[in-house]
């Protein structure tokens, strides 16, 4: 995987250089965006409802024992918007959209569709990679924004109805409002943007370098998802460090 990083960065560079062509590819960007929303929005909401809920469930009773339950809104709120929503949504999207990108581009590669594009003097980076990368870079942060809001709700519901915690909606959201600045949400969105770029470029690169028949496509899909997730988790640590540094 790590020997591919040079190539991946190269592909990223070539895609960034193709950015001025975005307007020409706007229809494909919209198609991809629709694909992302359609495939993942509902799933993202359900997932984050439970993530917020389980976080409250795990931490609430301990806080309550020490009489700190009034802080639960702040705790769940911060954890969801700075860490859990960006990371979990990135993992979800790597599995749903990254895999589809690698499979689609990989099969185009195997069945010579990309060769056909090249003979028509159509640059596969402009035609295939650029719209996908742009769509995911817009789509994932939007999805994360939804996930944050729904995740907070999940935490609120559990905090309110679990008798070991028993914090009212009002005091949950009061604590959340006091403990969280808009910058914390921006922080999470920035992270998700970086993760989106990783998923997009890793999956497209994997698709483009597919060799062999249908089995090669399968291998590419697996590698795209696994490599994206590994890179996301590694990057997450360093991004957290950097963003914390900027924050203070």
């Amino acid at each position: 995987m790590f020997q591919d990083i040079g190539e991946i960065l190269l592909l990223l560079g070539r895609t960034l250089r193709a950015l001025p062509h975005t307007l020409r590819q706007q229809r494909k960007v919209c198609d991809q965006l629709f694909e992302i929303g359609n495939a993942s929005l509902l799933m993202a909401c359900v997932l984050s409802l439970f993530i917020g809920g389980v976080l409250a469930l795990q931490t609430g009773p301990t806080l309550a024992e020490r009489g700190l339950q009034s802080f639960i809104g702040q705790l769940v709120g911060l954890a969801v918007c700075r860490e859990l929503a960006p990371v979990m949504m990135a993992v979800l999207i790597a599995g749903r959209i990254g895999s589809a990108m690698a499979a689609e581009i990989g099969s185009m590669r195997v069945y010579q569709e990309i060769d056909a594009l090249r003979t028509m003097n159509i640059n596969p980076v402009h035609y295939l990679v650029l719209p996908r990368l742009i769509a995911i870079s817009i789509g994932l942060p939007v999805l994360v924004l939804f996930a944050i809001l729904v995740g907070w709700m999940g935490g609120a519901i559990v905090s309110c109805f679990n008798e070991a915690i028993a914090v009212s909606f009002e005091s949950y959201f009061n604590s959340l409002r006091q403990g969280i600045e808009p910058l914390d949400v921006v922080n999470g969105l920035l992270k998700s943007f970086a993760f989106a770029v990783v998923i997009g470029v890793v999956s497209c690169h994997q698709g483009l370098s597919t060799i062999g028949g249908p089995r090669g496509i399968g291998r590419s899909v697996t590698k795209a998802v696994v490599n994206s997730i590994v890179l996301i988790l590694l990057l997450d640590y360093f991004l957290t460090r950097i963003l914390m540094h900027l924050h203070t």
Partner: protein
Amino acid sequence: MNAPAPQGIGLQVRDLCKSYNGHAVLNHLTFDVPAGEIFVLMGPSGSGKTVLLKHLIGLESPDAGEILVAGQPVSDPGVMTRYRVAMVFQSGALLNSLTVGENVGLYLSEHRLKPPADIARVVAEKLELLGLKGTTDKTPAELSGGMKKRVAIARALVVEPQLIFYDEPTSELDPLIAVTIGREILNLNRRLQVTSIVVTHDRDLAFGIADRVALLHEGEILALGSPDDVQANPNPLVQRFLKADFRFTPEPALP
């Protein structure tokens, strides 16, 4: 019609070599295809015809040797923007995510060469020419093998190429359509001097349209010349390939 009249462009191959995993597929090939010629490449399956075409259009890079298109190395990215070159793939290589019409019009729409209405007209024209009327909105998955091949040919013709490569254009077609395709290759060449390089196993097609024929065998050119010269070539391998037919004498029955 304000179609620019493309003039054919020539092609030169110098000492071209390529091996895959130590197995030489193209072995020091040298030949020229002058502008406006129909050059037919024949040869047994696996002799490297498709590999050769991929090199000629710049999809693969050779281990050694060079390929010049209109006097410039095909690896130079400018060549494909300055000249119109097209290829019909052996498998068709249609984009499965697009409809037939979008496939055929892809070159024009992607390079913004014509307004959408004109593209639709050109696409319909080409599809009709190849007997594919009414397939515009189908997807490639809904077509038969032969129909896909014809769509691929339509897609290449839309480019109005100056140099065109056909990889077995008639391999999946019935004899009637094969004749139509052959006539179209000839037409395009005679009307606009399009240089055409045709890989085929179809001897009738080959000798019917070729200005020159080359016979490739294990990565080397076994025979090259006018159709008559090649047919008269005394090399037994050439004769075996050209004369092979189904009319064999059955072995005598055992007593």
